[in-house]
Protein backbone atom coordinates (compact mmCIF):
# COMPACT_ATOMS: atom_id res chain seq x y z
CA UNK A 1 0.00 0.00 0.00
CA UNK A 2 1.23 3.48 -0.80
CA UNK A 3 2.34 5.39 2.30
CA UNK A 4 0.18 8.36 3.02
CA UNK A 5 2.23 11.57 2.99
CA UNK A 6 0.29 13.54 5.58
CA UNK A 7 -0.85 10.76 7.95
CA UNK A 8 -4.50 10.44 8.99
CA UNK A 9 -6.71 13.34 7.95
CA UNK A 10 -7.93 15.61 10.75
CA UNK A 11 -11.41 14.76 12.10
CA UNK A 12 -14.12 17.29 11.22
CA UNK A 13 -15.10 19.46 14.18
CA UNK A 14 -18.33 21.12 13.07
CA UNK A 15 -20.82 23.08 15.13
CA UNK A 16 -24.08 21.05 15.07
CA UNK A 17 -27.27 22.60 13.70
CA UNK A 18 -29.48 23.83 16.56
CA UNK A 19 -33.04 22.53 16.25
CA UNK A 20 -34.88 25.27 18.15
CA UNK A 21 -38.29 23.95 17.05
CA UNK A 22 -37.59 20.55 18.66
CA UNK A 23 -36.54 22.19 21.91
CA UNK A 24 -39.66 24.34 22.06
CA UNK A 25 -42.09 21.53 21.27
CA UNK A 26 -40.30 19.17 23.71
CA UNK A 27 -40.60 21.66 26.55
CA UNK A 28 -44.24 22.30 25.65
CA UNK A 29 -45.17 18.61 25.82
CA UNK A 30 -43.44 18.14 29.19
CA UNK A 31 -45.26 21.14 30.66
CA UNK A 32 -48.67 19.95 29.48
CA UNK A 33 -48.09 16.42 30.80
CA UNK A 34 -46.89 17.69 34.17
CA UNK A 35 -49.95 19.88 34.45
CA UNK A 36 -52.36 17.05 33.58
CA UNK A 37 -50.71 14.68 36.11
CA UNK A 38 -50.67 17.33 38.81
CA UNK A 39 -54.36 18.16 38.37
CA UNK A 40 -55.28 14.44 38.37
CA UNK A 41 -53.43 13.75 41.60
CA UNK A 42 -54.65 16.92 43.34
CA UNK A 43 -58.28 16.32 42.46
CA UNK A 44 -58.14 13.63 45.17
CA UNK A 45 -60.12 11.21 43.01
CA UNK A 46 -57.14 8.91 42.37
CA UNK A 47 -56.64 7.59 45.85
CA UNK A 48 -53.24 5.88 46.02
CA UNK A 49 -54.13 4.04 49.19
CA UNK A 50 -57.24 2.54 47.58
CA UNK A 51 -55.28 1.53 44.50
CA UNK A 52 -52.67 -0.22 46.64
CA UNK A 53 -55.38 -1.88 48.70
CA UNK A 54 -57.13 -3.47 45.72
CA UNK A 55 -54.24 -4.14 43.36
CA UNK A 56 -53.62 -7.61 44.81
CA UNK A 57 -57.02 -8.33 46.34
CA UNK A 58 -58.30 -11.91 45.78
CA UNK A 59 -61.27 -10.80 43.66
CA UNK A 60 -59.07 -8.75 41.32
CA UNK A 61 -56.53 -11.58 41.04
CA UNK A 62 -59.37 -13.99 40.23
CA UNK A 63 -60.44 -11.59 37.47
CA UNK A 64 -56.87 -11.37 36.22
CA UNK A 65 -56.69 -15.16 35.96
CA UNK A 66 -60.01 -15.28 34.10
CA UNK A 67 -58.82 -12.60 31.66
CA UNK A 68 -55.59 -14.47 30.89
CA UNK A 69 -57.39 -17.81 30.46
CA UNK A 70 -59.96 -16.30 28.10
CA UNK A 71 -57.42 -14.32 26.06
CA UNK A 72 -55.01 -17.25 25.64
CA UNK A 73 -57.77 -19.75 24.78
CA UNK A 74 -59.47 -17.39 22.31
CA UNK A 75 -56.21 -16.32 20.66
CA UNK A 76 -54.87 -19.88 20.34
CA UNK A 77 -58.13 -21.04 18.79
CA UNK A 78 -58.18 -17.94 16.60
CA UNK A 79 -54.70 -18.74 15.24
CA UNK A 80 -55.72 -22.31 14.39
CA UNK A 81 -58.93 -21.09 12.72
CA UNK A 82 -56.91 -18.44 10.90
CA UNK A 83 -54.49 -20.97 9.41
CA UNK A 84 -57.35 -23.27 8.36
CA UNK A 85 -59.42 -20.51 6.77
CA UNK A 86 -56.42 -18.86 5.08
CA UNK A 87 -55.55 -22.19 3.42
CA UNK A 88 -59.20 -22.70 2.44
CA UNK A 89 -59.38 -19.15 1.10
CA UNK A 90 -56.37 -19.84 -1.16
CA UNK A 91 -57.65 -23.29 -2.13
CA UNK A 92 -58.43 -24.16 -5.75
CA UNK A 93 -61.69 -25.64 -4.46
CA UNK A 94 -64.26 -22.92 -5.22
CA UNK A 95 -66.68 -23.99 -2.47
CA UNK A 96 -63.92 -23.96 0.17
CA UNK A 97 -62.70 -20.57 -0.99
CA UNK A 98 -66.19 -19.08 -0.88
CA UNK A 99 -66.98 -20.55 2.55
CA UNK A 100 -63.77 -19.01 3.88
CA UNK A 101 -64.53 -15.66 2.23
CA UNK A 102 -68.01 -15.69 3.76
CA UNK A 103 -66.67 -16.51 7.23
CA UNK A 104 -64.14 -13.69 7.06
CA UNK A 105 -66.72 -11.26 5.68
CA UNK A 106 -69.30 -12.08 8.37
CA UNK A 107 -67.14 -12.13 11.48
CA UNK A 108 -65.02 -9.16 10.47
CA UNK A 109 -68.08 -7.18 9.50
CA UNK A 110 -70.07 -7.36 12.74
CA UNK A 111 -69.12 -5.86 16.11
CA UNK A 112 -67.58 -8.29 18.63
CA UNK A 113 -69.95 -7.09 21.32
CA UNK A 114 -72.91 -8.02 19.12
CA UNK A 115 -71.35 -11.44 18.51
CA UNK A 116 -70.94 -11.96 22.27
CA UNK A 117 -74.60 -11.10 22.90
CA UNK A 118 -75.54 -13.39 20.04
CA UNK A 119 -73.73 -16.38 21.53
CA UNK A 120 -74.84 -15.69 25.10
CA UNK A 121 -78.46 -14.60 24.61
CA UNK A 122 -79.35 -15.37 21.01
CA UNK A 123 -78.22 -18.96 20.59
CA UNK A 124 -79.88 -20.40 23.75
CA UNK A 125 -83.17 -18.74 22.88
CA UNK A 126 -83.18 -20.10 19.31
CA UNK A 127 -81.81 -23.61 19.94
CA UNK A 128 -83.11 -24.96 23.24
CA UNK A 129 -80.97 -28.08 23.38
CA UNK A 130 -77.53 -28.96 22.03
CA UNK A 131 -77.28 -32.56 20.95
CA UNK A 132 -74.29 -34.26 19.41
CA UNK A 133 -75.16 -37.64 17.98
CA UNK A 134 -74.59 -39.93 15.05
CA UNK A 135 -76.43 -38.40 12.06
CA UNK A 136 -79.62 -40.17 10.87
CA UNK A 137 -79.75 -42.39 13.97
CA UNK A 138 -81.03 -41.95 17.50
CA UNK A 139 -77.64 -42.47 19.12
CA UNK A 140 -76.59 -39.44 21.16
CA UNK A 141 -73.09 -38.77 22.43
CA UNK A 142 -73.81 -35.52 24.24
CA UNK A 143 -76.95 -33.61 25.02
CA UNK A 144 -77.59 -30.61 27.24
CA UNK A 145 -79.83 -27.61 27.56
CA UNK A 146 -78.22 -24.81 25.65
CA UNK A 147 -78.41 -22.42 28.59
CA UNK A 148 -76.36 -24.87 30.66
CA UNK A 149 -73.79 -25.32 27.90
CA UNK A 150 -73.52 -21.65 26.97
CA UNK A 151 -71.88 -20.38 30.16
CA UNK A 152 -70.51 -16.82 30.13
CA UNK A 153 -67.04 -18.28 29.54
CA UNK A 154 -68.21 -20.48 26.66
CA UNK A 155 -70.06 -17.60 24.97
CA UNK A 156 -67.12 -15.23 25.41
CA UNK A 157 -64.67 -17.88 24.18
CA UNK A 158 -66.73 -18.71 21.08
CA UNK A 159 -67.39 -15.07 20.25
CA UNK A 160 -63.80 -13.89 20.64
CA UNK A 161 -62.19 -16.96 19.03
CA UNK A 162 -64.42 -16.92 15.94
CA UNK A 163 -63.98 -13.18 15.52
CA UNK A 164 -60.22 -13.51 15.98
CA UNK A 165 -60.11 -16.37 13.47
CA UNK A 166 -61.44 -14.06 10.77
CA UNK A 167 -58.69 -11.49 11.38
CA UNK A 168 -56.00 -14.16 11.69
CA UNK A 169 -57.13 -15.72 8.40
CA UNK A 170 -56.27 -12.48 6.61
CA UNK A 171 -52.94 -12.18 8.44
CA UNK A 172 -51.98 -15.78 7.63
CA UNK A 173 -53.08 -15.33 4.00
CA UNK A 174 -50.83 -12.28 3.67
CA UNK A 175 -47.98 -14.34 5.14
CA UNK A 176 -48.51 -17.22 2.71
CA UNK A 177 -48.65 -14.84 -0.26
CA UNK A 178 -45.39 -13.22 0.87
CA UNK A 179 -43.44 -16.46 0.30
CA UNK A 180 -41.63 -16.56 -3.06
CA UNK A 181 -43.25 -18.84 -5.63
CA UNK A 182 -39.84 -20.36 -6.35
CA UNK A 183 -39.97 -21.95 -2.89
CA UNK A 184 -43.10 -23.88 -3.81
CA UNK A 185 -41.60 -24.93 -7.14
CA UNK A 186 -38.40 -26.12 -5.48
CA UNK A 187 -40.43 -28.16 -2.98
CA UNK A 188 -42.61 -29.61 -5.75
CA UNK A 189 -39.56 -30.47 -7.83
CA UNK A 190 -38.26 -32.48 -4.85
CA UNK A 191 -41.47 -34.51 -4.87
CA UNK A 192 -43.15 -32.85 -1.89
CA UNK A 193 -46.97 -32.97 -1.86
CA UNK A 194 -48.93 -29.69 -1.55
CA UNK A 195 -49.74 -30.36 2.12
CA UNK A 196 -46.13 -31.15 3.00
CA UNK A 197 -44.95 -28.09 1.06
CA UNK A 198 -47.36 -25.88 3.01
CA UNK A 199 -46.36 -27.33 6.38
CA UNK A 200 -42.58 -27.57 5.98
CA UNK A 201 -41.69 -24.84 3.47
CA UNK A 202 -44.37 -22.14 3.12
CA UNK A 203 -45.78 -21.70 6.64
CA UNK A 204 -42.39 -21.55 8.44
CA UNK A 205 -41.34 -18.74 6.08
CA UNK A 206 -44.73 -17.06 6.28
CA UNK A 207 -44.28 -16.90 10.08
CA UNK A 208 -41.83 -14.03 9.69
CA UNK A 209 -44.67 -11.96 8.24
CA UNK A 210 -47.38 -13.48 10.46
CA UNK A 211 -45.80 -13.09 13.91
CA UNK A 212 -45.64 -9.28 14.29
CA UNK A 213 -49.33 -8.60 13.52
CA UNK A 214 -50.29 -11.67 15.58
CA UNK A 215 -48.52 -10.17 18.58
CA UNK A 216 -50.54 -7.07 17.93
CA UNK A 217 -53.71 -9.16 17.80
CA UNK A 218 -52.92 -10.85 21.12
CA UNK A 219 -52.31 -7.52 22.83
CA UNK A 220 -55.60 -6.36 21.39
CA UNK A 221 -57.26 -9.59 22.56
CA UNK A 222 -56.05 -9.09 26.16
CA UNK A 223 -57.97 -5.82 26.21
CA UNK A 224 -60.97 -6.96 24.18
CA UNK A 225 -61.73 -9.65 26.79
CA UNK A 226 -63.09 -6.75 28.87
CA UNK A 227 -66.15 -6.78 26.57
CA UNK A 228 -67.06 -10.13 28.15
CA UNK A 229 -67.97 -8.01 31.18
CA UNK A 230 -71.24 -7.32 29.34
CA UNK A 231 -72.23 -11.00 29.38
CA UNK A 232 -71.32 -11.40 33.07
CA UNK A 233 -68.05 -13.29 32.60
CA UNK A 234 -65.96 -12.64 35.73
CA UNK A 235 -62.88 -11.18 34.10
CA UNK A 236 -60.77 -8.28 35.34
CA UNK A 237 -63.07 -5.39 34.49
CA UNK A 238 -66.12 -7.27 35.78
CA UNK A 239 -64.40 -7.93 39.13
CA UNK A 240 -63.33 -4.29 39.39
CA UNK A 241 -66.85 -3.09 38.64
CA UNK A 242 -68.28 -5.60 41.16
CA UNK A 243 -66.13 -3.91 43.79
CA UNK A 244 -66.77 -0.30 42.81
CA UNK A 245 -70.50 -0.82 42.49
CA UNK A 246 -70.54 -1.56 46.23
CA UNK A 247 -67.90 0.87 47.53
CA UNK A 248 -68.22 3.56 44.81
CA UNK A 249 -64.42 3.89 44.45
CA UNK A 250 -64.83 3.92 40.67
CA UNK A 251 -61.65 5.64 39.54
CA UNK A 252 -59.18 3.81 41.85
CA UNK A 253 -60.56 0.46 40.70
CA UNK A 254 -60.38 1.46 37.04
CA UNK A 255 -56.74 2.40 37.72
CA UNK A 256 -56.18 -1.01 39.36
CA UNK A 257 -57.60 -2.76 36.30
CA UNK A 258 -55.64 -0.56 33.89
CA UNK A 259 -52.38 -1.31 35.70
CA UNK A 260 -53.02 -5.04 35.29
CA UNK A 261 -53.88 -4.60 31.60
CA UNK A 262 -50.60 -2.69 31.12
CA UNK A 263 -48.67 -5.47 32.89
CA UNK A 264 -50.29 -8.12 30.67
CA UNK A 265 -49.70 -6.23 27.42
CA UNK A 266 -46.09 -5.51 28.40
CA UNK A 267 -45.45 -9.21 29.04
CA UNK A 268 -47.11 -10.06 25.70
CA UNK A 269 -45.02 -7.46 23.88
CA UNK A 270 -41.82 -8.93 25.32
CA UNK A 271 -42.87 -12.41 24.26
CA UNK A 272 -43.51 -11.12 20.75
CA UNK A 273 -39.98 -9.70 20.59
CA UNK A 274 -38.41 -13.09 21.30
CA UNK A 275 -40.78 -14.91 18.94
CA UNK A 276 -39.82 -12.56 16.11
CA UNK A 277 -36.14 -13.29 16.69
CA UNK A 278 -36.88 -17.02 16.58
CA UNK A 279 -38.51 -16.77 13.14
CA UNK A 280 -35.86 -14.41 11.73
CA UNK A 281 -33.42 -17.36 11.54
CA UNK A 282 -31.48 -17.51 8.30
CA UNK A 283 -32.64 -14.06 7.26
CA UNK A 284 -29.15 -12.61 7.08
CA UNK A 285 -30.01 -9.43 8.92
CA UNK A 286 -27.79 -9.27 12.00
CA UNK A 287 -30.01 -9.25 15.06
CA UNK A 288 -27.23 -8.51 17.57
CA UNK A 289 -27.44 -9.80 21.11
CA UNK A 290 -30.86 -10.11 22.68
CA UNK A 291 -31.33 -8.21 25.96
CA UNK A 292 -31.28 -11.60 27.68
CA UNK A 293 -27.89 -12.44 26.16
CA UNK A 294 -26.58 -9.05 27.26
CA UNK A 295 -27.77 -9.64 30.83
CA UNK A 296 -26.29 -13.12 30.88
CA UNK A 297 -22.95 -11.80 29.72
CA UNK A 298 -23.01 -9.00 32.29
CA UNK A 299 -23.74 -11.49 35.09
CA UNK A 300 -20.48 -13.40 34.94
CA UNK A 301 -20.74 -14.86 31.46
CA UNK A 302 -17.55 -15.64 29.61
CA UNK A 303 -15.93 -12.54 28.13
CA UNK A 304 -15.94 -12.82 24.36
CA UNK A 305 -12.61 -11.61 23.09
Amino acid at each position, binding site marked *: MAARATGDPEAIRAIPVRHWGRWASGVGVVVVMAWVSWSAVHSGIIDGAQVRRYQFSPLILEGLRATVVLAVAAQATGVVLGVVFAVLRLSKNVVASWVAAFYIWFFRGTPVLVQLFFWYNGVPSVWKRITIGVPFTHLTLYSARTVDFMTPFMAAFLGLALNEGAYMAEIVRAGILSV*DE*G*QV*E*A*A*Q*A*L*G*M*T*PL*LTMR*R*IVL*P*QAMRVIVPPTGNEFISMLKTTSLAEAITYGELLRRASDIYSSNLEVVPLLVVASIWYLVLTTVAGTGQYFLERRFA*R*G*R*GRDLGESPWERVRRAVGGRPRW
Partner: protein
Amino acid sequence: MVTPMVRAEKVYKRFGRVEALRGIDLTVAPGEVTVIIGPSGSGKSTFLRCINHLEQISAGRLWVDGELVGYRQDGDRIHELREREVARRRAAIGMVFQRFNLFPHMTALQNVTEAPVRVKGISSSVAQAAARRLLDRVGLAGKIDCYPAELSGGQQQRVAIARALAMEPKLMLFDEATSALDPELVGEVLAVMRGLAADGMTMVVVTHEMGFAREVGHHLVFMDDGAVVEEGPPRQVFAEPREPRTRAFLSKVL
Protein backbone atom coordinates in the same frame (compact mmCIF):
# COMPACT_ATOMS: atom_id res chain seq x y z
CA MET B 1 -33.74 -50.48 -28.01
CA VAL B 2 -33.24 -48.77 -24.65
CA THR B 3 -36.13 -46.72 -23.31
CA PRO B 4 -35.24 -43.04 -23.81
CA MET B 5 -35.00 -41.06 -20.56
CA VAL B 6 -37.02 -38.25 -22.13
CA ARG B 7 -39.12 -38.46 -25.27
CA ALA B 8 -41.16 -35.53 -26.58
CA GLU B 9 -43.58 -35.84 -29.48
CA LYS B 10 -45.13 -32.68 -30.91
CA VAL B 11 -45.26 -30.95 -27.51
CA TYR B 12 -47.27 -27.74 -27.46
CA LYS B 13 -47.68 -25.31 -24.59
CA ARG B 14 -50.01 -22.35 -24.67
CA PHE B 15 -50.26 -19.59 -22.06
CA GLY B 16 -53.61 -18.05 -22.97
CA ARG B 17 -53.07 -16.89 -26.53
CA VAL B 18 -49.30 -17.13 -26.44
CA GLU B 19 -47.84 -20.30 -27.90
CA ALA B 20 -44.67 -20.92 -25.91
CA LEU B 21 -43.93 -24.33 -27.43
CA ARG B 22 -44.89 -25.23 -30.98
CA GLY B 23 -44.41 -28.92 -31.56
CA ILE B 24 -41.20 -29.99 -29.85
CA ASP B 25 -39.78 -33.39 -30.83
CA LEU B 26 -36.81 -34.50 -28.77
CA THR B 27 -35.21 -37.66 -27.43
CA VAL B 28 -32.72 -37.88 -24.57
CA ALA B 29 -30.94 -41.22 -24.13
CA PRO B 30 -29.95 -42.47 -20.65
CA GLY B 31 -26.51 -41.21 -19.62
CA GLU B 32 -26.63 -38.45 -22.21
CA VAL B 33 -26.10 -34.72 -21.59
CA THR B 34 -28.47 -32.70 -23.76
CA VAL B 35 -27.81 -28.98 -23.87
CA ILE B 36 -30.54 -26.59 -25.01
CA ILE B 37 -29.47 -23.14 -26.19
CA GLY B 38 -31.39 -20.30 -27.76
CA PRO B 39 -32.43 -16.68 -27.28
CA SER B 40 -34.53 -15.54 -24.30
CA GLY B 41 -38.20 -16.33 -24.73
CA SER B 42 -37.48 -19.21 -27.13
CA GLY B 43 -39.28 -21.68 -24.81
CA LYS B 44 -36.21 -23.56 -23.49
CA SER B 45 -37.10 -23.09 -19.83
CA THR B 46 -40.78 -23.77 -20.46
CA PHE B 47 -39.89 -27.09 -22.11
CA LEU B 48 -37.63 -28.01 -19.19
CA ARG B 49 -40.43 -27.22 -16.71
CA CYS B 50 -42.82 -29.42 -18.71
CA ILE B 51 -40.49 -32.40 -18.20
CA ASN B 52 -41.24 -32.51 -14.45
CA HIS B 53 -44.77 -31.21 -14.83
CA LEU B 54 -44.20 -27.80 -13.25
CA GLU B 55 -46.00 -26.75 -16.44
CA GLN B 56 -48.74 -28.84 -17.99
CA ILE B 57 -48.41 -29.43 -21.74
CA SER B 58 -51.33 -28.37 -23.96
CA ALA B 59 -50.91 -30.96 -26.72
CA GLY B 60 -48.57 -33.76 -27.79
CA ARG B 61 -46.98 -36.45 -25.67
CA LEU B 62 -44.09 -36.34 -23.23
CA TRP B 63 -42.56 -39.38 -21.55
CA VAL B 64 -39.91 -39.67 -18.86
CA ASP B 65 -38.37 -43.13 -18.59
CA GLY B 66 -41.31 -44.62 -20.48
CA GLU B 67 -44.01 -43.04 -18.27
CA LEU B 68 -46.31 -40.28 -19.52
CA VAL B 69 -45.64 -37.01 -17.69
CA GLY B 70 -48.64 -35.95 -15.58
CA TYR B 71 -50.96 -38.59 -17.03
CA ARG B 72 -51.70 -42.29 -16.99
CA GLN B 73 -52.61 -44.03 -20.22
CA ASP B 74 -55.21 -46.76 -19.98
CA GLY B 75 -55.85 -48.15 -23.47
CA ASP B 76 -57.09 -45.16 -25.45
CA ARG B 77 -57.92 -43.12 -22.39
CA ILE B 78 -55.71 -40.57 -20.73
CA HIS B 79 -56.28 -39.98 -17.01
CA GLU B 80 -54.92 -37.00 -15.14
CA LEU B 81 -52.67 -38.09 -12.27
CA ARG B 82 -53.39 -37.28 -8.64
CA GLU B 83 -51.11 -34.72 -6.94
CA ARG B 84 -49.60 -37.50 -4.85
CA GLU B 85 -48.71 -39.49 -7.95
CA VAL B 86 -47.30 -36.43 -9.74
CA ALA B 87 -45.18 -35.74 -6.65
CA ARG B 88 -43.93 -39.35 -6.58
CA ARG B 89 -42.70 -39.08 -10.18
CA ARG B 90 -41.10 -35.68 -9.60
CA ALA B 91 -39.13 -37.19 -6.72
CA ALA B 92 -37.13 -39.15 -9.31
CA ILE B 93 -36.22 -36.03 -11.31
CA GLY B 94 -33.79 -33.47 -9.90
CA MET B 95 -34.13 -29.81 -10.83
CA VAL B 96 -31.77 -26.88 -10.35
CA PHE B 97 -33.18 -23.38 -10.73
CA GLN B 98 -31.71 -20.14 -12.01
CA ARG B 99 -32.42 -18.43 -8.68
CA PHE B 100 -31.31 -21.42 -6.53
CA ASN B 101 -34.57 -21.45 -4.49
CA LEU B 102 -32.87 -22.85 -1.40
CA PHE B 103 -35.10 -22.94 1.67
CA PRO B 104 -33.89 -19.85 3.57
CA HIS B 105 -35.10 -21.06 6.99
CA MET B 106 -32.97 -24.21 6.85
CA THR B 107 -29.20 -24.74 7.00
CA ALA B 108 -27.34 -26.20 4.02
CA LEU B 109 -27.51 -29.65 5.66
CA GLN B 110 -31.25 -29.34 6.39
CA ASN B 111 -31.90 -28.22 2.82
CA VAL B 112 -30.29 -31.43 1.58
CA THR B 113 -31.90 -33.82 4.10
CA GLU B 114 -35.43 -32.37 3.98
CA ALA B 115 -36.77 -34.25 0.94
CA PRO B 116 -35.07 -37.63 1.58
CA VAL B 117 -36.49 -37.64 5.14
CA ARG B 118 -39.96 -36.21 4.43
CA VAL B 119 -40.63 -37.61 0.96
CA LYS B 120 -38.71 -40.88 0.89
CA GLY B 121 -39.01 -41.60 4.60
CA ILE B 122 -35.30 -42.25 5.06
CA SER B 123 -34.12 -42.07 8.68
CA SER B 124 -32.57 -38.72 9.49
CA SER B 125 -29.21 -40.16 10.55
CA VAL B 126 -28.82 -42.00 7.23
CA ALA B 127 -29.97 -38.90 5.31
CA GLN B 128 -27.50 -36.72 7.20
CA ALA B 129 -24.59 -39.02 6.43
CA ALA B 130 -25.55 -38.97 2.75
CA ALA B 131 -26.00 -35.18 2.81
CA ARG B 132 -22.54 -34.71 4.30
CA ARG B 133 -21.03 -36.83 1.52
CA LEU B 134 -22.91 -34.83 -1.13
CA LEU B 135 -21.95 -31.45 0.33
CA ASP B 136 -18.36 -32.67 0.53
CA ARG B 137 -18.56 -33.70 -3.13
CA VAL B 138 -19.68 -30.18 -4.18
CA GLY B 139 -16.87 -28.73 -2.06
CA LEU B 140 -18.94 -27.39 0.84
CA ALA B 141 -18.00 -29.70 3.70
CA GLY B 142 -17.17 -26.66 5.83
CA LYS B 143 -20.48 -24.90 5.23
CA ILE B 144 -23.03 -27.51 6.31
CA ASP B 145 -24.42 -25.42 9.18
CA CYS B 146 -24.65 -22.16 7.22
CA TYR B 147 -27.98 -20.66 6.25
CA PRO B 148 -28.35 -19.79 2.53
CA ALA B 149 -28.09 -16.05 3.27
CA GLU B 150 -24.58 -16.69 4.63
CA LEU B 151 -23.41 -18.30 1.38
CA SER B 152 -22.27 -16.80 -1.93
CA GLY B 153 -24.39 -17.39 -5.03
CA GLY B 154 -22.04 -20.09 -6.29
CA GLN B 155 -22.09 -21.86 -2.93
CA GLN B 156 -25.90 -21.65 -2.80
CA GLN B 157 -26.20 -23.18 -6.25
CA ARG B 158 -23.87 -26.01 -5.26
CA VAL B 159 -26.05 -26.70 -2.20
CA ALA B 160 -29.06 -26.71 -4.55
CA ILE B 161 -27.35 -29.31 -6.74
CA ALA B 162 -26.56 -31.44 -3.66
CA ARG B 163 -30.21 -31.06 -2.56
CA ALA B 164 -31.42 -32.40 -5.92
CA LEU B 165 -28.86 -35.24 -5.93
CA ALA B 166 -29.92 -36.33 -2.44
CA MET B 167 -33.09 -37.77 -3.97
CA GLU B 168 -30.91 -40.02 -6.17
CA PRO B 169 -32.63 -38.85 -9.36
CA LYS B 170 -32.45 -40.70 -12.66
CA LEU B 171 -32.55 -37.39 -14.53
CA MET B 172 -31.26 -33.91 -13.69
CA LEU B 173 -32.72 -30.70 -15.15
CA PHE B 174 -30.67 -27.49 -15.05
CA ASP B 175 -32.61 -24.30 -15.75
CA GLU B 176 -29.99 -21.62 -16.50
CA ALA B 177 -28.16 -22.69 -13.35
CA THR B 178 -25.36 -20.14 -13.78
CA SER B 179 -27.26 -17.15 -15.20
CA ALA B 180 -27.76 -15.44 -11.83
CA LEU B 181 -24.10 -15.78 -10.79
CA ASP B 182 -21.20 -13.34 -10.87
CA PRO B 183 -18.84 -14.32 -13.70
CA GLU B 184 -16.13 -15.46 -11.31
CA LEU B 185 -18.54 -17.84 -9.52
CA VAL B 186 -19.83 -19.51 -12.69
CA GLY B 187 -16.79 -21.80 -12.93
CA GLU B 188 -17.28 -23.55 -9.58
CA VAL B 189 -20.88 -24.50 -10.48
CA LEU B 190 -19.95 -25.65 -13.99
CA ALA B 191 -17.17 -27.80 -12.47
CA VAL B 192 -19.75 -29.64 -10.34
CA MET B 193 -21.95 -30.13 -13.41
CA ARG B 194 -19.00 -31.48 -15.41
CA GLY B 195 -18.31 -33.95 -12.62
CA LEU B 196 -21.90 -35.16 -12.72
CA ALA B 197 -21.76 -35.60 -16.48
CA ALA B 198 -18.52 -37.56 -16.17
CA ASP B 199 -20.26 -39.89 -13.67
CA GLY B 200 -22.86 -40.72 -16.32
CA MET B 201 -25.83 -38.72 -15.00
CA THR B 202 -28.55 -38.08 -17.58
CA MET B 203 -28.87 -34.30 -17.82
CA VAL B 204 -30.94 -31.75 -19.71
CA VAL B 205 -29.18 -28.40 -19.43
CA VAL B 206 -30.64 -25.06 -20.49
CA THR B 207 -27.74 -22.64 -20.56
CA HIS B 208 -26.05 -19.63 -22.11
CA GLU B 209 -22.60 -21.11 -21.41
CA MET B 210 -21.44 -22.02 -24.92
CA GLY B 211 -18.11 -23.41 -23.69
CA PHE B 212 -19.93 -25.86 -21.42
CA ALA B 213 -22.32 -26.78 -24.24
CA ARG B 214 -19.44 -27.58 -26.58
CA GLU B 215 -17.21 -29.47 -24.15
CA VAL B 216 -19.68 -31.35 -21.94
CA GLY B 217 -22.79 -31.77 -24.10
CA HIS B 218 -23.35 -34.94 -26.09
CA HIS B 219 -26.28 -33.48 -27.93
CA LEU B 220 -26.98 -29.81 -28.71
CA VAL B 221 -30.44 -28.40 -29.35
CA PHE B 222 -30.98 -24.89 -30.67
CA MET B 223 -34.47 -23.54 -29.99
CA ASP B 224 -36.11 -20.38 -31.27
CA ASP B 225 -39.68 -19.15 -31.06
CA GLY B 226 -41.00 -22.31 -29.37
CA ALA B 227 -39.53 -24.78 -31.83
CA VAL B 228 -36.37 -26.83 -32.30
CA VAL B 229 -34.49 -25.16 -35.17
CA GLU B 230 -31.45 -27.42 -35.29
CA GLU B 231 -29.89 -30.22 -33.30
CA GLY B 232 -26.85 -32.44 -33.49
CA PRO B 233 -23.42 -33.10 -31.98
CA PRO B 234 -22.27 -29.82 -30.33
CA ARG B 235 -18.97 -29.54 -32.23
CA GLN B 236 -20.71 -29.96 -35.54
CA VAL B 237 -23.48 -27.46 -34.79
CA PHE B 238 -20.98 -24.90 -33.52
CA ALA B 239 -18.54 -25.42 -36.39
CA GLU B 240 -20.95 -25.58 -39.30
CA PRO B 241 -24.55 -24.68 -38.42
CA ARG B 242 -26.97 -25.61 -41.20
CA GLU B 243 -29.78 -23.15 -40.44
CA PRO B 244 -29.36 -19.39 -41.04
CA ARG B 245 -31.15 -18.68 -37.73
CA THR B 246 -28.62 -20.82 -35.83
CA ARG B 247 -25.77 -19.10 -37.61
CA ALA B 248 -27.14 -15.65 -36.73
CA PHE B 249 -27.54 -16.62 -33.05
CA LEU B 250 -24.09 -18.22 -32.75
CA SER B 251 -22.38 -15.29 -34.45
CA LYS B 252 -23.74 -13.03 -31.68
CA VAL B 253 -22.90 -15.20 -28.66
CA LEU B 254 -19.54 -16.74 -29.64
